């Protein structure tokens, strides 16, 4: 199933921050990680990751540094900053609110269906 574009865009920042919280990483690895986590359900336009990274860097949530890889390719690594961690916590709370609220409504729907069947 394809997740809608709006939802992908909204979830991009918490995804990136959460992945960077675990360890410093670079663009391609972040994309791979997201694919792994979502079992390929979330299809990103991969180039779009980088402007988002830029924006996060500008907002002072993350910082970057260059490092050579084993293949001799210069990679731009990103590291999460204190402000980024705070932002991640906030995002997490917001998503939790949405998630729990949605779960409740869906639970209600199921219950109603069951009631209906009993009647």
């Amino acid at each position, binding site marked *: 199933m394809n997740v809608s574009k709006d939802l992908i865009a909204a979830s991009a920042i918490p995804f990136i921050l959460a992945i960077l919280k675990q360890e410093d990483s670079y*663009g*391609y690895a972040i*994309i791979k990680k997201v694919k792994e986590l979502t079992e390929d359900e979330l299809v990103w*336009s*991969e*180039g*779009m990751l*980088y*402007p988002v990274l*830029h*924006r996060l860097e*500008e907002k002072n949530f993350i910082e970057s540094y*260059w490092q050579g890889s084993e*293949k001799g*390719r*210069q*990679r*731009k690594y990103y590291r999460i900053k204190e402000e980024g961690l705070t932002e991640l916590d906030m995002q997490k709370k917001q998503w939790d609110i949405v998630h729990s609220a949605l779960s409740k409504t869906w639970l209600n729907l199921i219950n109603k269906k069951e009631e209906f069947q009993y009647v």
Partner: protein
Amino acid sequence: MFDLISNIRTWSDLLRAKGDLSEPDIIELENHLKDEIDDLVTIGLSTEEAFLISVKRMGNVHAISKEYSKVSTENLWKHLMINPDGALDSGQNRKYIAMVIIFSLISGTLFKLPELFGLNLLDSENGVLFFKNISFFILPFVAAFFLIKHQSTWKIPAVIGGIFALAWVLINLYPTYSPNDTEFLTALHLPLFLWLITGIAYMGMDWKATKGRMNFIRFTGESVIYGTLIFCGIIVLAMFIQAMFFAIQINASWFIQNYLIVYGSSSAAMITIYLVETKKSVVENFAPILAKIFSPLFLLVMLVFLGVMIGSSKSPFIERDYLIAFDFMLALVLGLVIYVISARNPHEKNTVFDYINLALILTALIIDGIALSAIVFRLSAYGLTPNKVAALGENLVLLVNLGGLAWLYIRFFLKKFDFKKIEVFQTSYIYVYALWFGMVAFLLPIFFAFQ
């Protein structure tokens, strides 16, 4: 055989051409693409398949660069033009506009200053004096505009200011004797020389690099076009004023001649510089479009001319005036060729305009070769005059430039090297022009005892 490296380069050049990404951004994206291709190849895809899939996954190049343009602070002024509110840089922009207004006023007033001492520069008898000095009324302010904008250190301003001051003192100290040929030549070449010096202010430390000098060439072309348009606007305004006041029996020409044209020209110059500088890479450059429209037409005319000349076996080039006409032809061909080159992606394959360029150059070289052989013979019979030396020298400088370009173009078509090399040659050749203009302006008068 699928050439992965050149395909990746073509892809990244597409991004580069959009102008919103910095070089590190492009390297980052390129490495992403390479990583992805490597992974896909290890699971058994061919490089071509891997490349296609990776590019597809990366997403639309246009959309990516658009996203970048939203974040990159360097390009904020673009939004300044597109949406005036919500821009951080509007204070900065206001500062530039203030600079344009102040500099135009100072520059116009400088024009008027000699009048206080009874010297009207616009009198026809002061024509040469006026033309000799005209660059000093405008170009220092253009240079100052860029130096302030780039917040350059004291070094470059000191060098540019020094050259300007020295040039001004020299040419006004030079005596002049009838028939004033050398003075006229100085007046003609000095603005060109000083424009190249002003270029250093535009380029900053980039003047040493091909890219910086190429940008200056582009900037020059756009400035000429914008300047001409704005100046046409001023002339329309002048004619309008004249006609309106004439209707109520008032002659407004004193105002037009003494104020409108003076202040109009100086502000036209400053506005042009400001506009061309701020519009760069938002709007497509116009000079290359003009060059592309006219280069086939010029080629056609020159081929017909060559055919008729050979067919009728006429050789009309025996006077100096004709030599100047051929100098113009060479300069024009060079302009067409340069501006086609300036808009060309160096990694692209040969385009039809490359062949037109080469054909143009070769035709120009043949015509000029025939002309020169006729003229040089005639000229040498009458001895050297400043005008002959200048016209011949000009011809030679242009000839070497075009000859070099033709040679490099042929080698490029034979796949001996990248297109980059043509750019490097052409941008380095600017030094030769600077040297030549400087020599005509400052040394030629001495050689011919200021006659």
